[in-house]
């Protein structure tokens, strides 16, 4: 796309391919291409060199609108972390612990994944790495009970931030989504305004199914933001453009690796720049 000298049909097809390859999705790509064609008609776009700045400003302003970072306020601020299996929830919680402890906040993790093999042990290791408290029950116990216990412990220990890890679950499994709703209810009943942030973790390698995930998790747990993980790979995570434009859910964090420091606040400009790399 950057080698073209004029805006012809071939150039526009290449641009469409870049967007589809980035998992932006057909419907959103068509909307963007219509805006580009209109921009050419209105003489806002006069050469291929104008395309990238045009798209950067369009897409990043969409992604940046109403993007509010997590406010750390009441005791404790409760962050609920949800998503399908294997996307990076537990690792992201470790990274969030690392991020916040640098500001001197007292952090607690709740191991509310009581189902998957060694889930509690995995979060325990992260807690040790970032000096966080951890509340764990034995495997097979009720996740809502873990959440409840953690809320009481966080209140009594003057914890600043409580981050609740949940089991991976496919959004199509209604019994598991009911379990999530129950966890959400318990949290909101125990602390007013809680959970202050419900983060849906999405894997950047995921295709259009991410939209289904965002829709159903949002219905069950009032998702307030997305963590887009594994952006250190070759996938671009373009699905989040549609998730913002159609569901109004913003990306708040990106995961760029497996270590404690591999978490960044989401920067719309950088994201759009990377779409075209």
């Amino acid at each position, binding site marked *: 796309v950057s080698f073209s000298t004029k805006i012809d049909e071939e150039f526009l097809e290449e641009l469409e391919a870049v967007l*589809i*390859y980035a*998992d932006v999705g057909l419907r959103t790509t068509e909307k963007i291409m219509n805006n580009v064609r209109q921009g050419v008609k209105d003489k806002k776009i006069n050469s291929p060199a104008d395309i990238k700045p045009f798209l950067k400003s369009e897409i990043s302003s969409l992604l940046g609108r109403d993007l509010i970072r997590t406010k750390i306020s009441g005791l404790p601020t409760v962050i609920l972390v949800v998503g399908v299996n294997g996307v990076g929830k537990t690792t992201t919680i470790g990274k969030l612990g690392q991020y916040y402890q640098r500001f001197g906040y007292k952090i607690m993790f709740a191991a509310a994944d009581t189902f998957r093999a060694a889930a509690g042990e*995995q979060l325990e*290791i992260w807690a040790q790495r970032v000096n966080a408290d951890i509340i764990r029950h034995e495997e097979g116990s009720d996740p809502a009970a873990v959440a409840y216990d953690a809320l009481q412990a966080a209140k009594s220990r003057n914890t600043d931030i409580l981050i609740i890890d949940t089991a991976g679950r496919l959004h199509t499994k209604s019994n598991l989504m009911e379990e999530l709703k129950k966890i959400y209810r318990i949290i909101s009943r125990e602390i007013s305004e809680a959970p202050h942030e419900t983060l849906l973790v999405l*894997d950047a390698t*995921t*295709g259009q199914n991410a939209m289904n995930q965002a829709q159903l998790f949002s219905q069950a747990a009032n998702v307030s933001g997305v963590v887009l993980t594994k952006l250190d790979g070759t996938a671009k995570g373009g699905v989040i453009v549609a998730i913002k434009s159609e569901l109004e859910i913003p990306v708040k964090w990106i995961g760029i690796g497996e270590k404690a420091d591999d978490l960044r606040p989401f920067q719309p400009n950088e994201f759009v720049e990377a779409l075209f790399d």
Partner: protein
Amino acid sequence: GLADKLQQTFKKLRGRGKLTESDVNDAMREVRMALLEADVNFKVVKDFINRVKERAVGQEVLDSLTPGQHVIKIVNDELTALMGGTQSRIMISSKPPTVVMLVGLQGAGKTTTAGKLAGLLLKQNKRPLLVAADVYRPAAIKQLQVVGEKVGVPVFTIPGSQDPVLIAKQATDQALAMARDVVIIDTAGRLHINDELMDELVAIKIQAKPHEILLVVDAMTGQDAVTVAESFNTKLGLDGVILTKLDGDARGGAALSIKAVTGCPIKFAGMGEKFDALEPFHPDRMASRILG
């Protein structure tokens, strides 16, 4: 779904005998949309549409079908043929132990799938051994040990070792002495663009000499599936693919993309989190799922 859209496209066609080029072009627009929405790779879609176009133009519409149904049948048959032709089984070596190595991106489902394969082999009266070669992920070894307990299969580790190559080598060397005849090596998730970790897989391959190297891929993977599969295949040579999390509603276009580009057979489908949730791969079911 696609069937209804094609019925609409062909409404004006009722009663005509043959599919003209313009009829087929209209239909192919709908098919292209369906495949892209299903996460089939952009280039694979292009090539696939061209193949189907050639087969469809000038075709006599069967009396028992509408033109829309006829096109769907051609597309479905073509998809099924493309993804099929595979035996859903681990090839057991005549010189035990048979060594199986699972590789793939982070979180794809390797450790869980290792447990499922072990359970399947037990039912086939084999004596599998699980090998915990992920020394990086927190509690990965513990996870495989818990998995091994649940399926009733022993797990080989070298406590405190940070050397996956040594772990894999020792396990395969000692398997027969431990009276195990199939070795299943669970490796750490890694990026195909991490040269150091991809070299590590090559080193494990050299030392453990696997009979089967299987790429574990998440069914919800989007356009990136081709890049990932090609990299692993070029670096290691793959004997097959296992597609996981098919119990969700991801259309699974990655299956077509991977098979079309690498030729790697898709051997199994992961259908849940429990250890009995592994099924043979059914190309016909996958084809209708992709088409929606």
